[in-house]
């Protein structure tokens, strides 16, 4: 987040943000369930200018054997950015940031997946960020939930995700790249709307205790919007778009 110097107008006098959105308006979100031929399940998401592909394999055997668990299945998640996905070409080796986000997304998905239904085996979730534009972890988590469902993995709920944040002393929904760089706070939230549980939560940037509560609230409501798009994507694949 480094320098938060506001060299651009992040919010104008009419409450319009730098990309023309209102404070509580998410970016354009397009989710597609399926698409990959070799993966057991997959999803593709465009979340603003983010473009992310997720493939799921499993449940399948674990090698080496001693990494498996006789009582429960295990979930493995890799979040990975393509060299061309960001402004300056990214070094192909996994960064510490990618390793941390992989772990955070894994722990956000675990409450949703019925791991005890497939002991001794693993489910692998491979997340590929093709183009990044702020909020990749939320977009990735959203698509990963759809890909898991597409793979037929038994689930308690799906995790929907979006970031709340603060620019120009105002709480906003769905922080884009410019707002993340020049804004005051970014709070990615992952939420299971049916089970009403927050499974991913992070915050960078300064919030008063009141703003903090408001951000959580705005984020949870945003997740409910995203959830509808997740369900629609699965519906479109399995029951066709004609049903609409």
């Amino acid at each position, binding site marked *: *987040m*480094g*320098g938060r110097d506001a060299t651009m107008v992040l919010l104008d006098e009419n409450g319009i943000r730098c990309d023309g959105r209102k404070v509580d308006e998410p970016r354009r979100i397009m989710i597609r369930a399926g698409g990959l031929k070799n993966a057991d399940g997959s999803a593709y998401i465009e979340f603003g200018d983010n473009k992310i592909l997720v493939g799921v394999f499993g449940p399948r055997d674990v090698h080496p054997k001693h990494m498996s668990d006789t*009582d429960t299945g295990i979930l493995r998640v890799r979040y990975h950015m393509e060299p061309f996905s960001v402004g300056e070409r990214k070094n192909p080796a996994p960064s*510490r*940031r990618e*390793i*941390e986000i*992989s*772990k*955070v997304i894994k*722990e956000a998905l*675990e*409450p949703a997946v019925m791991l005890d239904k497939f002991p001794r085996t693993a489910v692998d979730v491979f997340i590929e960020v093709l183009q990044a534009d702020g909020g990749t972890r939320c977009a990735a988590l959203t698509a990963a939930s759809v890909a898991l469902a597409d793979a037929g993995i038994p689930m308690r709920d799906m995790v929907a995700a979006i970031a709340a944040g603060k620019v120009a002393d105002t709480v906003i929904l769905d922080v884009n790249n410019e707002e993340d760089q020049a804004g005051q706070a970014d*709070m990615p939230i992952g939420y*299971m709307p049916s*089970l*009403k*549980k*927050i*499974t*991913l*939560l*992070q*915050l*960078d*940037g*300064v*919030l*008063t*205790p009141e703003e*903090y*509560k408001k951000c*959580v*609230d705005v984020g*949870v409501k945003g997740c409910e919007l995203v959830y509808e798009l997740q369900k629609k994507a699965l519906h479109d694949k399995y029951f066709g778009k004609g049903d609409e």
Partner: protein
Amino acid sequence: MTSTSVIDELKKTKILELLEQGKRVDGRALDEAREITIETNAIPKANGSARVFLGDTEVICGVKIQPDRPFPDTGDKGLFICTAELLPLSHPTVETGPPQPPVIELARVVDRGIRESHMVDVSQLVIEKDKSVIGVFADNVVVDYDGNLFDACSYAATAALLTSKTPKWNWTDDSPVLAEGEETPLPITTIPVSVTMGKIGNYIIVDPNGDEWESMDARVTITTDSDGNICALQKGGSDGFTQDEINQCGEISVRVGAKIREKLKEAQKGSQ
């Protein structure tokens, strides 16, 4: 430190039973941190240092301050980097080798809590714009493990930074030259305090010890600054929180953090 066994299960059952009676295994209140002992200047040859005991968890932080090259796009700012490492003597399960994801997360969360509070004013750490800046490295090593490394490392780094002495460098002949004897404290703007809360069943507990850490369903680490604002948060663990719980954790972090901030101030004063 993540394996589950029959004994772990029994331990968790016991911990939950006690929580239902409003009690914790070591007799603390649910929102009570363990005793914190801060010994500054533990490594006199470093620019700053602290040894912190959080119950039976022990961390040493050493701060090194030295000239460095700025990042290409921020030539008007010094560097601040905070790391954390689990020494293999801290627990029988720790393995040597490259850091595993939990340790990478630990280091990044501790770094971010301090960085996002803007504790160290890096704009004052420039020797020559775009060419040479001052780098501040706060390296934590965990010496004994009994849960909640997030807070122990954060307190050690904060105490070490609060008591660090910065040398002065002049820009001479295209390189930074040390000006002997001109040491000043680091430019500090606020004192961040990290408070980690575990969720076991439906109970939220502050500063989980080792046994509680193994039994947690989920955790959240919240950092607050001297103004009582919230500046960083990280949720972890394989379960979720309700919105109410997250709001409650925010309140606890402000309240408990304020008390701990006083301890850090005392340590700072004690070292002068």
